[in-house]
């Protein structure tokens, strides 16, 4: 600010300020005003510097944590667990299907035999009663086995979702690896010890320049 031309003062300034600037102490007053502005600027730079440093630190920590925890091995482990779930559920469903396939011919045979018995004995003698009971049981078993077979499609329905989650883990994994790479690149250029306290305009400027401000 040019202190030699105190009269070239903005007409919009409050009259008190204008009077002060025009007074004998005008130069000193302007200097004091300048100092206040500089101090305010410095606060702003300090706050910005702190913010940039905090952000940088958070990114570095995040990258460090992620790299330490092993994104790749963690994701691979998660995918393996889901693969295990798929295999175990397929195994369980197959056991039920095995059972149904094993029992159906037996139900058919029982039904067939009971029908044959009923062909030569009728009425309410013991053989007929038993044959009718067997026939009923065989029919109920067949229908129950068919229901059981059908209900095994839960494995396919849940499996489809597990596969979607597996694909999602892959996406998250590649995003995290990209984040680690980025934070690693940032960490590589940092000097954290020197940047612990931002106490001056120079510190703030230096730190900000590190981030391309």
């Amino acid at each position, binding site marked *: 600010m040019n202190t030699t031309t105190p009269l070239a003062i903005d007409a919009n300034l409050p009259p008190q300020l204008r009077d002060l600037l025009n007074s004998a102490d005008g130069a000193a007053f302007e200097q004091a005003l300048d100092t206040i502005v500089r101090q305010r600027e410095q606060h702003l730079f300090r706050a910005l510097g702190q913010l940039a440093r905090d952000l940088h630190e958070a990114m570095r920590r995040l990258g460090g944590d992620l790299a330490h925890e092993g994104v790749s091995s963690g994701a691979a482990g998660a995918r393996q667990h889901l693969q295990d779930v798929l295999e175990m559920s397929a195994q369980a469903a*197959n056991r039920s299907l095995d059972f149904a396939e094993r029992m159906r011919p037996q139900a058919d045979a029982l039904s067939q035999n009971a029908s044959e018995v009923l062909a030569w004995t009728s009425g309410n003698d013991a053989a007929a009663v038993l044959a009718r009971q067997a026939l009923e049981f065989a029919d109920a078993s067949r229908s129950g086995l068919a229901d059981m077979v*059908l209900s*095994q*499609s839960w494995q*396919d329905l849940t*499996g489809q979702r597990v596969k979607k989650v597996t694909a999602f883990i892959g996406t998250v994994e590649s995003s995290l690896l990209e984040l680690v790479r980025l934070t690693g690149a940032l960490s590589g250029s940092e000097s954290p010890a020197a940047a612990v306290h931002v106490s001056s305009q120079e510190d703030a400027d230096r730190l900000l320049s590190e981030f391309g401000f």
Partner: protein
Amino acid sequence: MEKNMKILVVDDFSTMRRIVRNLLMELGFSGPLIQEAEDGVSALAMLRSMSFDLVVTDWNMPNMSGIDLLRAIRAEPIWKGLPVLMVTAENNRDQIIAAAQAGVNGYVVKPFSAATLEEKLVRIFERLAASGVSA
């Protein structure tokens, strides 16, 4: 409905192929005439090596999905009349429209019962008979 039909069941889940096979056998179709493929690519290879009267395919599969298989089938003049029943877990309007436009003969949403499967198959073969196209 003719029960001595050669059927190709296409699904990436072996359990689902087994379930569909069981349901078809429950409906009286012959087990030895039912073949299985795990995706569209292997289904096409099987279609080229032997003749089939019906394809029952899942929608979501790796390598080649059910809709791509359907389009590949319809692109071949010799398979123009080959009935394709689409089986899918998603009751999605867009998918149903896409399948219809690609020339699907039937669409079943999982899970389905043997009765539902029979109803769809009966309708497919009734319509084919009415249109005079033999599979």
